[in-house]
């Protein structure tokens, strides 16, 4: 697949200044005022550019340049607000001046029908951007003239949650955790691609694939809980896609019933691990099966995988499968306070889950038409499932390795 013309460049070193982070929102006020003013101007620019692109088949160079600067500036500002970068951004959207930057295309030919229907075509991308974050809240609100929309678009669940958690982490350690930064940057990058598409910078649709978005970013270390499977299998049966929700209901009920038993197993395992320092192997196996089964069911329900899963959570039977660790010694303090320690991961999991629902709905439509899932959305959903599985494994004492929020897969993932 060709690289997306709107490319996110991440040169951030994770170091943060505590005072500017503490006052980040207040410090950003002048920038927010400036982007509001700029947005009013860009409405007219984009309208003019829309007519030019419709008639000439490509955007006007000057208007395109102004729009690019606006999109880039919005990205800088989002990165600053969401703590994905440290320095105070400039007000002009210059390329190369900020650690989270955008590479934008030169004005090129654009399909007229895509230009004409752009406002409708962009809606799915904007919906997903709502979940991922990085939308230009004030900008789009002014354009649409509807503050209700701006609020929704500006509240990027993922980026905002990463920023919220990152704020505490930075104040404590002076550094942004890499997982949170990567996740935030990913959300911002997707928002930038959606904005670039909406504002006629490119007619290439935003790509939700995390690996493509953060291609230049260093991958995190391999996590003990990870996904395996055939990444290239995107084929979907239209009939099972259409009836996906009712078909999943028996699994959901079984998951619920099994979950009740698992809850008590986890409680028992908590006591065992607290006293022995190591989980009971029988309970560990039972809970592992449940966590794996949950992944299979969610992969089926959220259209990450095609086949109907089995009811037993057996390893190696499903195209999207989960590698889980053997019982290992765990720090008793971390076991004792596991629920409290898991709260940040649960928050991120919830934020990601919001996007997962949207991605599933969008995938449903695409898969019904094409008989295959879109690559980007499928990979985004797989990222969410991986993170949620890591959280479940952590919460249910299968591992003491904290979930890694980075959308990138861990390094040296063995191919199976």
């Amino acid at each position: 697949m060709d690289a997306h013309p709107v490319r996110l460049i991440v040169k951030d070193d994770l170091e943060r200044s505590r005072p500017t982070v503490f006052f980040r929102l207040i410090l950003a006020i002048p920038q927010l005022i400036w982007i509001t003013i700029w947005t009013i101007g860009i409405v007219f620019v984009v309208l003019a550019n829309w007519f030019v692109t419709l008639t000439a088949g490509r955007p006007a160079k000057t208007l395109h340049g102004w729009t690019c600067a606006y999109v880039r500036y919005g990205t800088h500002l989002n990165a600053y607000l969401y703590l994905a970068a440290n320095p105070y951004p400039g007000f002009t959207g210059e390329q190369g001046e900020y650690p989270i930057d955008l590479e934008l295309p030169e004005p090129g030919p654009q399909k007229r029908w895509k230009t004409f229907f752009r406002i409708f075509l962009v809606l799915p991308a904007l919906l997903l951007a709502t979940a991922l974050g990085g939308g230009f809240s004030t900008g789009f609100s002014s354009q649409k003239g509807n503050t209700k929309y701006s609020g929704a678009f500006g509240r990027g669940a993922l980026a905002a949650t990463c920023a919220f958690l990152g704020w505490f982490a930075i104040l404590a350690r002076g550094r942004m955790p890499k997982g949170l930064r990567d996740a935030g940057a990913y959300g911002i990058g997707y928002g930038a691609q959606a904005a670039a598409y909406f504002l006629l910078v490119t007619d290439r649709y935003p790509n939700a694939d995390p690996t493509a978005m953060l291609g230049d970013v260093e991958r995190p270390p391999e996590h003990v809980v990870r996904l395996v499977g055939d990444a290239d299998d995107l084929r979907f049966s239209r009939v099972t896609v259409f009836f996906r929700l009712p078909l999943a209901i028996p699994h959901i009920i079984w998951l619920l019933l099994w979950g009740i038993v698992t809850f008590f197993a986890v409680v028992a395992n908590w006591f065992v691990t607290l006293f022995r320092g190591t989980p009971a192997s029988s309970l560990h196996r039972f809970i592992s099966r449940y966590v794996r089964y949950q992944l299979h069911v969610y992969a089926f329900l959220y259209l990450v995988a095609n086949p109907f899963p089995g009811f037993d959570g057996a390893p190696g039977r499903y195209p999207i499968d989960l590698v889980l660790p053997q019982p290992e010694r765990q720090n008793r303090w971390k076991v004792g306070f596991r629920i409290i320690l898991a709260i940040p991961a649960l928050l991120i999991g919830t934020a990601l889950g919001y996007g997962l629902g949207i991605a599933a709905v969008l995938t449903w439509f695409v898969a019904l038409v094409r008989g295959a899932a879109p690559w980007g959305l499928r990979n985004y959903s797989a990222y969410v499932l991986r993170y949620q599985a890591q959280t479940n494994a952590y919460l249910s004492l299968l591992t003491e390795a904290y979930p890694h929020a980075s959308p990138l897969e861990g390094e040296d993932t063995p191919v199976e």
Partner: protein
Amino acid sequence: MTRSRAALLLAFAAVWAVAAWLLWRSSLPAYHLTHLDEHALFPGFVLHRARHFSGVERLFWVGQTVTQLVVLGLFARYGVRWMRESAAGPIGTGMLLGMIGFALVWAAELPFSVLEVWWRHRYGLDGSYVQATVGDWLGLGARFVLLSVALAIVMGLARVRRIGDWWWLPAAPVFVGLTALLAFVSPWLLGGRPFHAAYVSKLERIERVHVPVRVIGGFSEPNAFATGLGPSRRVFLWKPITEGVFTPRLDRFVIAHELGHLAHNHIWKSIGWYALFAFPLAFLLSLAARRRGGMGVPEAVPLVVFVYVVLQLAALPLRNVVSRHMEAEADWSALRATHDPAAGRDLFRLFAGQTREDPDPPWWDYVFLENHPTLLQRIEMTEYYRRHYAAAQSP
């Protein structure tokens, strides 16, 4: 067929017949209903509307049934190809195939469901397009759960080496047990609010049944039913039957009818009848499954689903005969408890106007679709009671 098999079959048929006779026995007198003229009982416009409405409804039923048979027939032939969409092992794959079969039927029947709502609206009856489409799409999930449980039981039993093709013998009692359990539990799940009327306790005393009577909402048509076993027995009234034109006198007849069902153990008898049908049905399904390698393999499921639907359709007239017999007994019980045949007559006349039900449908409708006596037959029974009993007893 060997002689021992023939003897076994004969013995089974004899047991079946004796059980059926025991279940058939009722408190109904040996009566002969005098045919009444429906034009004298119902206003002309009510009859005309009911006829017209029911006529098209019947066409919908025929269309749906034919569609169902065609779709499942094709599915029996080609459905196995969906096996590749499963990673769930033999039983899970069987469940998936079963669910896909009924999902395809649902999709094929969708135009009829939508047309039916439109038709109901034309006759001033309620119906929701959302409920008929999206709402029912989710309801399909609930049906899938039942289907999955059923397939898990029969396939699980068939996969036990010592049971194999004899799965139908243990499966039938399991399903009977589940039906009884459902009948026992369901009244507690339905909720509703208590219905208070002075006549209820008197009726309970006469019919020797003391159960709660409750009103449940969410329905647009007048109806009532009795359900439950032992301590869970209840009478439920749909809210519309407690309002408007349904006076306390009519409600008294309705409640007496429902109490009659409980007084004559109709829920238990229904389970008994279900058991009588379950064994031969399961046996015939096992014969069908053998053509595709037995019930333990998913390849058999599409054919079994098709055969199941055909057998259900074939058994429908017989089940309707049983159901009509029990409903007639409940009507008779209500007449004896209330001594008010006029209330019964008024109630059934009202039904024709309220539900657009044809008082005297054609024979094939009666055979396949009527699980109650027709409105005309029910009125004829009230008339029979009035002539032979009411005069001799005071209310």
